[in-house]
């Protein structure tokens, strides 16, 4: 269960969105829509806890969130397997790392590439690896920023299937995207929440 109430978030000291409220129940996804620059990335970063909310609250079980940004955090000098193993270790400490990794590789069709260096992947292959990272974290609440950029159609399908599984196991996903993912999930258009002027940015004291 993810509850966001009356959230105002800012980028670079300027409030971007305000009064955002929504709830996502376990097993559901929410798709964020809105034109370029409206603040989807900013909202996801705030949800993930990377930046503080100016106003309002974000509530979900502690240590359940995972964030995937425009940038994938793939190390060029590590192989696909090593890249995944690292994140598995970070999120788990120990234990079922190996099997998790294998299933993730399989889910995103990376088995053939498992020994390739991260730097020699094509744009779409990199993206798939970035998504496999998510699978490996085993977190319930996902914040995904344009997850299917550069993916070809079969890969988008792979992702949709994986996400479907994740949701049916009680997961939650908030996804910002411009293209159609083939998911049937409610959409939230952020345009109406565009922050009005002087709404509590760091410059407010000077106005």
């Amino acid at each position: 269960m993810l509850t966001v109430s009356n959230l105002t978030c800012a980028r670079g000291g300027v409030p971007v969105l305000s009064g955002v409220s929504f709830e996502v129940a376990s097993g559901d996804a929410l798709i964020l829509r809105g034109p370029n620059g409206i603040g989807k990335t900013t909202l996801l970063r705030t949800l993930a806890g990377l930046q503080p909310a100016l106003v309002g609250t974000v509530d979900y079980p502690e240590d359940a969130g995972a964030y995937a940004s425009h940038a994938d955090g793939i190390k060029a000098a590590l192989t696909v397997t090593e890249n995944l193993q690292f994140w598995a270790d970070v999120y788990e400490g120990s234990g079922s790392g190996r099997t998790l990794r294998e299933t993730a590789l399989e889910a995103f069709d990376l088995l053939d590439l498992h020994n390739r260096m991260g730097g020699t992947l094509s744009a779409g292959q990199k993206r798939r690896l970035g998504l496999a990272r998510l699978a490996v974290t085993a977190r319930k609440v996902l914040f995904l920023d344009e997850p299917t950029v550069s993916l070809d159609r079969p890969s988008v399908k792979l992702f949709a299937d994986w996400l479907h599984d994740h949701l049916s196991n009680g997961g939650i996903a908030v996804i910002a995207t411009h293209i159609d993912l083939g998911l049937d999930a409610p959409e939230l258009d952020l345009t109406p929440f565009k922050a009005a002027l002087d709404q509590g940015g760091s410059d407010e004291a000077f106005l």
Partner: protein
Amino acid sequence: MSLWEYANPKRFMGWTRPVLPWTFALAGLCLAVGLIWGFFFTPDDFRQGSTVKIIYLHVPAALMAINAWIMMLVASLIWVVRRHHVSALAARAAAPVGVVMTLIALFTGGIWGQPMWGTYWAWDPRLTSFLILFLFYLGYIALWEAIEDPDTAADLTSVLCMVGSIFAILSRYAVLFWNQGLHQGASLSLDAEENVADVFWFPLLVCIAGFVLLFIALVLMRTRTEIRVRRMRALEARMRRA
């Protein structure tokens, strides 16, 4: 109304407007009186000859160089704890003034060193710690300049100022350990035994007062400028979004 209210940018602009000219006038007066008194109407020292006259610049500048950093430290702490914008901006405004004070202390000290120790520069602990202080100032200012977002810059420079202060004190001990030095110890103590003679002491006090006032006036003025810059940014941002 609590004291903190005065740190609200608008109120700050309000109460500093009338105060500023007076501070400047008083600073100018003290400096003029102190320096003219010191330069024209004090006798030469029996050992140092006319070079004692340098003391009227050297000592106040040296004191203010250290005090400016302390003021920045306090302002940084206030920013970190209470997040008053004026406090962060005042720290930013003080830094260049502190640099100038440090430079004056270094230059006058160096010039003084030539007749006294026979060299413009020696790696004496006192002088060396000032050189290090100068570097801390440079780093602090450079960090402010390098960061786009003003709040981020205030946060980061505050942390730098706090960590830097610890290391500045450490350096002082390290430098003492490293070299025993030529510079005289503090003789402005209240202990009359080692105090300088009254003829030098009174004009020196006036000069110190002048430097303190000048520092305050400059910091107020520069803080006002910084506030206006922020306000301008805010207004421009609003216009862009309108």
